[in-house]
């Protein structure tokens, strides 16, 4: 069994792998962590931005915690090359780390729109803690913020920007907002909702240049009027951090191709999180799911297998939720499957929308929008996830749901979805609480 584990990347996937290694191993092993940043959670950066939490709250594994777990950490250093024949990882500063097995969990990085001025002052991505700190320092009440890109990442910080008393304009090159999270109908509803809440939105506009004018930022577009603002946040997508693996011999497609144990084409090299291309649970096809829950599950499955257990993963489920101005927006599974059977429901008198997608009598995808104070909305959010995750046969409920797409609860309960779901665990055993990771003795 491997006694020297190397974890490359200290994000959600890497930290979950370390915890699981310590939980599952039968003998104490050596664990080395290489991470360009101190381990923290990107998920909570929006709450750091709006000052509802302190910076200390974002860290997932402090130096003290890593020491408790018996992890040797190289923080602030990046992996530069992987020699899979010699079982050695070389860091950017030339340090060589030998391993018996390793986990590639180097995640993804933001991509800025390739326009002049994109690297200038007061133009930031919002991905890393450093970038969040820059935005926190520059965003003041009354400032005008322009968000370039109307995707999930942008929308996670929308509430925070408004809560800080800033004026917000969103510009998006696609004809509509949230193009990779919800469908056209849902997007129209969210757009109308945001405009009602004072957010300016311009879709279908191509940014061509960002200039400095009298201490402010001027955005120019291929068509339409310029926008002058104080701060630009670029949320124009992310790219997988694969470059450093070139020539390593590890098989790469859209991400590092992994099997159901999170193992790459090299048997003692695993991959997890944004960088891994594993099975999509619903479609059965290989996919990169650059989302937090996938990183967590990938990381735990990899950690268990690295600890010598045989844990097979059923595949990741695409799930996203964002709340904007007290409107919940969530989607699950194959929500954009153009060939699926669909049923939709839209309430004329409140911002409530459902879309259900079917393959046979199984729900394979769903979109749900509703006011976050609607007490039943959250029940349905979880139940839709459960229906897609479990793939229970809905039999005659399918016809009922196609006529009544809001009536999810009876269908969920009567189809015995709970019965199907209860035996399922990721690691084949009950999960341990976050504080229960075995510490070094």
């Amino acid at each position, binding site marked *: 069994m491997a006694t020297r584990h190397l974890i490359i990347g200290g994000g959600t996937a890497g930290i979950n792998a370390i915890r699981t290694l310590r939980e599952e191993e039968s003998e104490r092993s050596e664990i080395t962590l290489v991470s360009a940043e101190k381990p923290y959670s990107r998920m909570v950066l929006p709450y750091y931005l709006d000052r*509802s939490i302190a910076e200390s709250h974002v860290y997932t594994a402090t130096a003290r915690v890593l020491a408790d777990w018996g992890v040797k950490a190289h923080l602030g250093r990046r992996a530069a090359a992987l020699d899979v024949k010699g079982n050695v990882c070389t860091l950017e500063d030339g340090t060589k780390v030998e391993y018996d097995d390793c986990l590639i969990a180097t995640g993804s990085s933001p991509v800025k729109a390739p326009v002049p001025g994109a690297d200038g002052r007061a133009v930031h991505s919002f991905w890393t803690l450093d970038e969040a700190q820059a935005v926190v320092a520059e965003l003041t009440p009354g400032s005008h913020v322009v968000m370039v890109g109307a995707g999930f990442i942008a929308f996670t910080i929308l509430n925070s920007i408004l809560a800080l008393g800033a004026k917000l304009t969103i510009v998006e090159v696609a004809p509509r907002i949230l193009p990779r999270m919800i469908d056209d109908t849902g997007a129209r509803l969210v757009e109308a909702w945001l405009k009602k809440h004072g957010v300016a939105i311009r879709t279908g506009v191509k940014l061509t240049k960002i200039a400095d004018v009298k201490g402010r930022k001027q955005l120019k577009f291929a068509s339409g009027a310029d926008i002058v603002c104080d701060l630009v946040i670029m949320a124009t997508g992310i790219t997988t951090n694969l470059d450093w693996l070139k020539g390593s011999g590890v098989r790469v497609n859209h991400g590092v191709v992994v099997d159901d144990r999170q193992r790459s084409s090299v048997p003692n090299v695993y991959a997890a999180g944004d960088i891994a291309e594993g099975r999509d649970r619903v479609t059965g096809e290989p996919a990169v799911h650059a989302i937090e829950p996938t990183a967590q599950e990938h990381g735990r499955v990899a950690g268990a297998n690295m600890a010598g257990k045989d844990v097979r993963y059923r595949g990741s489920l695409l799930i996203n939720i964002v709340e904007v101005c007290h409107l919940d927006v969530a989607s699950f599974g194959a929500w954009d499957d153009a060939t699926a059977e669909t049923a939709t429901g839209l309430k004329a008198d409140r911002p409530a929308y459902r879309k259900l997608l079917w393959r046979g009598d199984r729900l394979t995808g769903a979109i749900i929008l509703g006011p*976050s104070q609607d007490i039943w909305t959250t029940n349905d959010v979880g139940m839709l996830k459960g229906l897609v995750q479990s793939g229970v046969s809905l039999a005659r409920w399918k016809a009922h749901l196609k006529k009544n797409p809001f009536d999810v609860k009876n269908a969920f*309960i009567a189809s015995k979805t709970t019965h199907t779901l209860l035996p399922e*665990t990721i690691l084949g055993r009950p*999960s341990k609480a976050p504080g229960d990771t075995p510490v070094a003795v």
Partner: protein
Amino acid sequence: MSVLKIYPEKCTGCLRCELACSYMQTGEFQPAKSVIRVSPFEGHTSYAPYTCTQCAEGWCMTACPVGAITIGAVGAKDVLDDTCVGCKLCTIACPYGTMFYDPDTRKAFKCNLCGGAPACAEACPTAAITYEDVATADWLGDFARERTARVLVGVS
């Protein structure tokens, strides 16, 4: 561990469990903040209380990016308010629909078995909710299947 066992055929739909739950959890009688919820069946002629099963995976707990959901003394998954940031990830990770979000406190909340003395079970006048040392199970599935069979007649 002991869990909430539901005998749905005994439920009268009186909603005392929701009142008791919200009072215990928040100090106010506000069913909107109850984490046990009475579902109607057959056009409000049958009812059954639905709440967290305290499942083995703890999808809410493993999904939390800041470790804000833990396992309390009686074995229930419980939200640590000081740690929860309100990101809602747990609400989409829980496949049972029993993770909730409170817009007033901006925190997630769920059934924590009231620390071992569940208010809903105590309040239930017909013993449709009991707190027993049994393995958790799908208490409502068979009941709901039978009670909804007629709804689906004619649906094809």
